């Protein structure tokens, strides 16, 4: 256990010095902060549009944002976690694996009386702690911006919901970090090490949901999950592919936690899908052989 904690400490130290994950973290924090402001600006504009149409006698419909919860402003954060957070996690995983291989220190480390599992899980736990810290910072900033926009402290259950949402993001990010680590440990080329996990991310985020729902890739960047096309083979395809579309499941679970009225879904299934993903990714990375970890890396 003490050996694993050494790997964890080393990973945390290295990640705090690594520039690529840090740069993505800065983009992540900036976008989460700005996303609430964009949500506020859009909501204000939509309400103004509604007032104009009502005054002109063009509609008798109720204002769609009349009783919207302050948690509505966190809606776009879901997308930034899927877009930026997961990429940040992948890059952290890849960087962690490549660091030792590039420096040639992996041979030295594995020559010590330590197991492959301690080395790999030490790295994964270190990255997970770094991701948890990142999400805590992002969550605090997000909650502060939403409170400022709302103009008063939110009801306490809303803060709990926000905390639950950011907490739910952790297994998703850890799963993608494990995929990044896997890519970095298996690849023989630096570019391949980054490209393979990003291709996997693209497959999970865009291709799998498309098969089950017939949704277009850009439509999947909307915080509201795309419902399956009724009829034809889509019902059956979605039954099979839906649980594998982990980013769509994250959207559904987050929407339900944040009480988004546009989102309907099964929270238990979504949570099961996310936790199954992180478990499978961690299991896969634990199977990487010593010879692969020590393999020569080239460009």
């Amino acid at each position, binding site marked *: 256990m003490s050996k694993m904690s050494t790997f964890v400490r080393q990973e945390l130290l290295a990640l705090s010095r690594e520039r690529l994950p840090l740069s993505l973290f800065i983009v992540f924090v900036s976008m989460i902060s700005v996303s609430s402001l964009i949500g506020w600006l859009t909501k204000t504009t939509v309400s*103004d549009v509604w007032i104009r149409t009502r005054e002109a006698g063009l509609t008798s419909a109720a204002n*769609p944002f009349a009783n919207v919860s302050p948690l509505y402003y966190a809606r776009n954060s879901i997308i930034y976690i899927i877009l930026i957070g997961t990429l940040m996690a992948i890059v952290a995983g890849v960087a962690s694996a490549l660091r030792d291989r590039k420096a040639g220190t992996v041979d030295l480390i594995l020559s010590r009386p330590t197991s492959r599992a301690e080395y790999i899980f030490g790295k994964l736990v270190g990255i997970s702690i770094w991701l948890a810290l990142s999400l805590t910072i992002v969550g605090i900033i997000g909650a502060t911006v939403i409170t400022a926009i709302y103009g008063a402290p939110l009801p306490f259950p809303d803060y709990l919901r926000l905390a639950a949402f950011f907490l739910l993001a952790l297994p998703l990010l850890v799963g993608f970090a494990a995929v990044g680590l896997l890519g970095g440990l298996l690849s023989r080329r630096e570019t391949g090490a980054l*490209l393979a996990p990003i291709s996997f991310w693209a497959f999970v985020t865009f291709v799998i949901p498309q098969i089950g729902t017939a949704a277009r890739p850009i439509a999947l960047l909307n915080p509201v999950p795309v419902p399956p096309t009724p009829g034809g083979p889509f019902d059956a395809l979605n039954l099979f592919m839906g649980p594998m579309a982990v980013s769509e499941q994250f959207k559904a679970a987050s929407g339900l936690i944040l009480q988004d009225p546009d989102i309907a879904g099964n929270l238990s299934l979504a949570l099961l899908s996310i936790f199954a993903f992180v478990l499978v990714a961690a299991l896969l990375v634990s199977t990487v052989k010593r010879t692969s970890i020590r393999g020569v890396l080239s460009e």
Partner: protein
Amino acid sequence: MELLDVRRSRLMAALLGFFLLAAIISVVVASIDFGVKADAYKAYTDALAASGSKNPIAAPQLFPLQLMRAAIEYLEILGALFAIILGYAAIAKEKQRGTLSLLFTRPIGPFTLGMGKLGALAIVWLAFVAVVVSATMLTAIIAGHAQLTSEDIGRLLLTILGAWLYLLVWTAVSMAIASWSRQLTTALIISIVLWLLVVLVIPQIGDTMDPDNQVPGGLFKSLQIAKPDEVAVLANFSGYNSARDALEISSVTKHFERYAFAFLGIKDQYNQQPIGVVWAGVFINTLALWLFAVGTIGISLLTSKPKTLLRTSK
């Protein structure tokens, strides 16, 4: 030499394979989706006929080029990322192998290396886009029972040209950054952050700021407002819309999207219009694509001069 490297690269083969798979799946899914809608329409009209009512809704029509929508979106997102990685790798491998000093001992001009690498990657991207477009169209013909007209072929060729320019922009950007940067890691950081912002974040903010995207099914549809009234109401928010548009057109991705969607008839106003009408409609986007391409290629050539490359490869 660069072409030989790319041809031997298993990474390139995997990249092309993955992209082709995603694009073909997208066309198959779109074809099935159309089939489902056509069947639903038939069931609806049969039910109406049985009850003796008239059908007020027109039958869904298949426009084969529209089946390429998701493939174009994949080119926007993944194509740009792959272009960045190939452009970066073209310079990174020379810096890491230490072959630059040797290359520049040969009697070559200041722009020869940059032009050679860009030229080779331009050929690669032209072949790549042609294969992707041909494969997706072949899939549409087989899976969607679609038929192409000679005008459709012209539209596809113009789409290939636009996609080629778009990928060339990203390759030139990443080559320029990799040449200019002293540290390759820094080059990769800047390129990926730029991709994230230009390809994903800016268009996503633009879409989010669209009032019509705020309610499922569309805001104006939910308020039961006709198109002319919608235009009149939105005219009161010209400042907001201009800011949104300015944000969108700062991204080369949006220019490519508007260009390709117009020529493929995905944007309703250009569907089945003569090529000349579409050309006039997206002239600004075409010009912007060319300007981005010329600008980034120029910068890429300037940064790949021996003086810069040898300085940054030490």
